[in-house]
């Protein structure tokens, strides 16, 4: 008779995902039951927002996700704009998409580090985090902050692009693109990674839709679903890019989707550099503390690096937001789906599966 051993995986970071604990029942190396425990990063943002005006609240929302704060900012700003009917200038939309795609690239680099690290390939994180820093340098120059940008506000963006910024973006894109084949050789073609990733944590297409899987994990099942294409926001309908799909639905397919999407992001950024229009970058609102938001409700979503990132927002005509509910992709991937995926998996694969699903506790708990 086999003996069941209980192990707590976490709450330390299992890579770069954030503090989260998974309670595992093991028989030998095989997991028979997994239960997630979150709450280590709960900062009650949704509650804090209720007591702050829209413009004050915008400084909070970016903190919901560390690797990728911008979809939060964009979602928040767009939700407010949709409810109040605030028009965003064209240039601001282009700048927003530039920021979003840069942030996606940065997030994928960080993911690459986490995914490789959790498979034991430690050269990749050194490289990818290093290259991510070049993107952070761009963010620093554009927004004044490296990680929390607080840049996309209701009405547009806070500052115009600095002089010569797009040239530097272009340089960084060249650099990152030139490095991608090296990552291929080092990581995506790596026999060790392939060996461990292919066939691990498979999601089949029906389950994926049924369980609310979004983003790269869904596209890795061969379903071309991308918010940028399905429900175009900002200026995505004017841009030329492919929705990447892979077959297999396993860890490796998900990795390949992300790898190929990096190329798409670079492609999008190059289009933005080429076609960005001139004009104002912000629509003025009244003094932020006085700005009464029209009563209304909306659900907005962006395609973040981990999938559909949605905000449900309700306003009641006061200066404050009545309710802001964040639907992070990790909320679905990281709790119920992860629990199911881990059943039958090997202990050594837990961190890899978590990374592959895009588990991000800060957005589960908010």
């Amino acid at each position: 008779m086999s003996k069941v051993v209980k192990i707590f995986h976490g709450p330390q970071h299992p890579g770069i995902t954030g503090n989260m604990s998974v309670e595992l029942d093991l028989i030998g190396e095989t997991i028979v039951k997994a239960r997630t425990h979150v709450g280590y990063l709960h900062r009650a943002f949704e509650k804090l927002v209720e007591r702050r005006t829209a413009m004050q609240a915008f400084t909070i929302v970016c903190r919901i996700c560390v690797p990728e704060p911008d979809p939060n900012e964009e979602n928040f700003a767009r939700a407010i704009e949709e409810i109040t009917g605030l028009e965003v200038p064209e240039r601001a939309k282009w700048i927003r998409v530039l920021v979003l795609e840069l942030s996606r690239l940065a997030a994928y680099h960080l993911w690459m580090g986490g995914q490789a690290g959790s498979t034991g390939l430690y050269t990749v994180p050194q490289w990818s985090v290093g290259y991510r820093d070049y993107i952070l340098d761009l963010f620093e120059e554009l927004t004044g902050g490296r990680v929390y940008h607080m840049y996309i506000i209701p009405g547009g963006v806070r500052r115009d692009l600095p002089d010569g910024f797009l040239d530097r973006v272009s340089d960084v894109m060249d650099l990152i693109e030139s490095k991608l084949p090296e990552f291929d050789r080092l990581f995506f073609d790596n026999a060790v990674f392939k060996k461990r990733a292919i066939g691990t944590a498979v999601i089949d297409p029906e389950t994926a839709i049924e369980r609310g899987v979004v983003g790269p994990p869904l596209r890795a099942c061969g379903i071309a679903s991308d918010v940028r294409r399905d429900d175009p926001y900002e200026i995505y309908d004017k841009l030329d890019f492919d929705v990447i799909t892979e077959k297999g639905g396993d860890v490796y397919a998900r990795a390949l989707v992300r790898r190929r999407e990096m190329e798409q992001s670079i492609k999008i950024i190059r289009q933005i550099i080429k076609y960005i229009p001139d004009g104002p970058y912000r629509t003025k609102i009244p003094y932020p503390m006085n700005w009464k938001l029209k009563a209304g409700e909306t659900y907005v979503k962006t395609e973040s690096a981990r999938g559909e990132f949605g905000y449900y927002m309700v306003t009641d005509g006061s200066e404050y937001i009545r309710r802001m509910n964040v639907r992070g992709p990790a909320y679905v991937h990281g709790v119920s789906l992860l629990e199911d995926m881990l059943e039958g998996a090997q202990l050594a694969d837990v961190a890899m599966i978590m990374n592959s699903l895009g588990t991000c506790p800060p957005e589960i708990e908010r």
Partner: protein
Amino acid sequence: MGWGIDLKGIVSPFTALKYLGKHPHTVRYPYEKKKTAKRYRGFHINDLEKCVGCGNCAKICMNETIDMVKVEGIEPKTGDSGLRPKVDYGRCCWCALCVDVCPTGSLKLSTDYVYVDEDPNSFLYIPGLERKEYEKNVGWTCETDLDSLLDLERVEMKIMPPDERVKTFAEAVYGYTVEEAKREAERCTGCGVCISACPDRMHIPDYIKAIRDGQFDESVRIIYDNNPLPEMCGKVCTRRCEFNCIMTHRAGKENAIAIRWLKRFACEQFESYEEVLNLQPQPLNGKKVAIVGGGPSGLTVAYYLRLKGYETVVFEEMPKAGGMTMAGIPKYRFPIPSLDKQLNHIKSVGVEIRENTKVVKGEPKSNNEVSFEKLKEEFDAVFLGIGLTQPMKLGVEGEDLEGSIQALPLLKAVNFGEKINVGQKAVVIGGGNVAMDCVRVLRRFGVDVTLSYRRREVDMPADNEEIHEAKEEGVVFRTQTIPVEIIGDENGKVKAIKIQRAEMVPDPKGGRPRPVPIEGAYEVWECDNVIAAIGQKADYSFLPDDIVEKLDLQWGKIPVNERGMTKVEGIFAGGDAVNWTADAISAIADGLKAVKGIDEYLSGK
């Protein structure tokens, strides 16, 4: 995926070996400190000179990081609260919203972001006073208007086009609609710096907030707390509040919050004020106060003393109370129904206004006169709100010719609907608001008007808007011209005016430049009328001589103490005859001072 050997997958990772021995691309040796981006959001820096202590930074901060504190050496003054921000780095999240709402641009962030100290209190400091070393490295700033989170553009006020304006005495400014007023009110940050400039210290942010919330009745109640003639102020106030509005630092005077128009808006929302205010004057306490002069200061005293239970009687020489706002200000700026509405409200609380009643010294000669001595005897206190009624003369040759007149009698005649006798061409001399009223009134009679002023246009004491509108209406401005002589024809009528051009000479003592006549630069302008609008003085002829002496007039003004009382016991004074700013809102402020003074005096406090 079978168990076959993935040769490529095994070999290709080893390509990374080519980087062995190469320099890392992230860190350079010897160690180079990376330069921070120009927009970096680090510690706060503040220019204490530029800062006006509005507290927008403290208000917008979502972490309550900023406290507004007193700083030694900085006193409150007009347009400056005297407070300065103090930042608690235990709470700051470096969002820089404080910078983006700073109206003066004094608050910035530096690119410095590392500070290590074992004393937690050193993380609580007043930028600009302490840690000045950060000022070398300016980071995040708010430079352009679009960067600023403040709405810097005033909601435009609709006004009658100039070619229509000159045909009518109907009110030229149309006033805000409800949406426009709310939108304009939303721009206000509620800092209260404007209060520092208002002689009357009106509760400006509070009534603007009420407008923003759509509570117009509440707004009127707040306004009436210390101003019994708000609609007048809402139309013709000299609005020093607006010139000290924090928005002016970035957007100029024309984009200050339209405090005056908002007040006007609130007041115009109601046909009458009785219901809105629903005041219950206290029962009469048996004390009586006589008010000489029904101008803004006198009406203020009468109104608020009546509310406090004093019996107040206003003696007004003219057929209608209102003082200069009735007699001096043209009706296209301040229509009579609007004045009536306010006078009716003042009367409704029980103030008695005796119009057409002149106060004289000695025995009254007719029913329309009352003797000052009798007033002094019958009433427990007397308030002098007599204003400036005697126009000053130019002091040049030919001033007594027919057609040489003064602005004030002209305006008064027009305002009371009397017929005036003016020709085709007129020259108005002066650069103040009275001169502007005068030229614009004359334009409405179809007169070709030239305005002569001894200094430059920028030196004119008149309101910029008035100057602008007068020009729109076709008034010819001739600045740096000094009248020398009025030339008459054989019938003793004005034929022309001789002026001498002047140049501006800087004052060696650093004062404002003086106009100095250019030798020989004479011009003669033909005209039918010369109208002097160079100022007025008070008329004390109705007072008994011994009282005038006791009043101890200084440069024609009545000195008063902090209670508004003159040097004669029981006689209080206020308004243009007392203060040097000589505008309606100062008169109201004087009135309120006297209300307090009289109340204290009569209740024996």
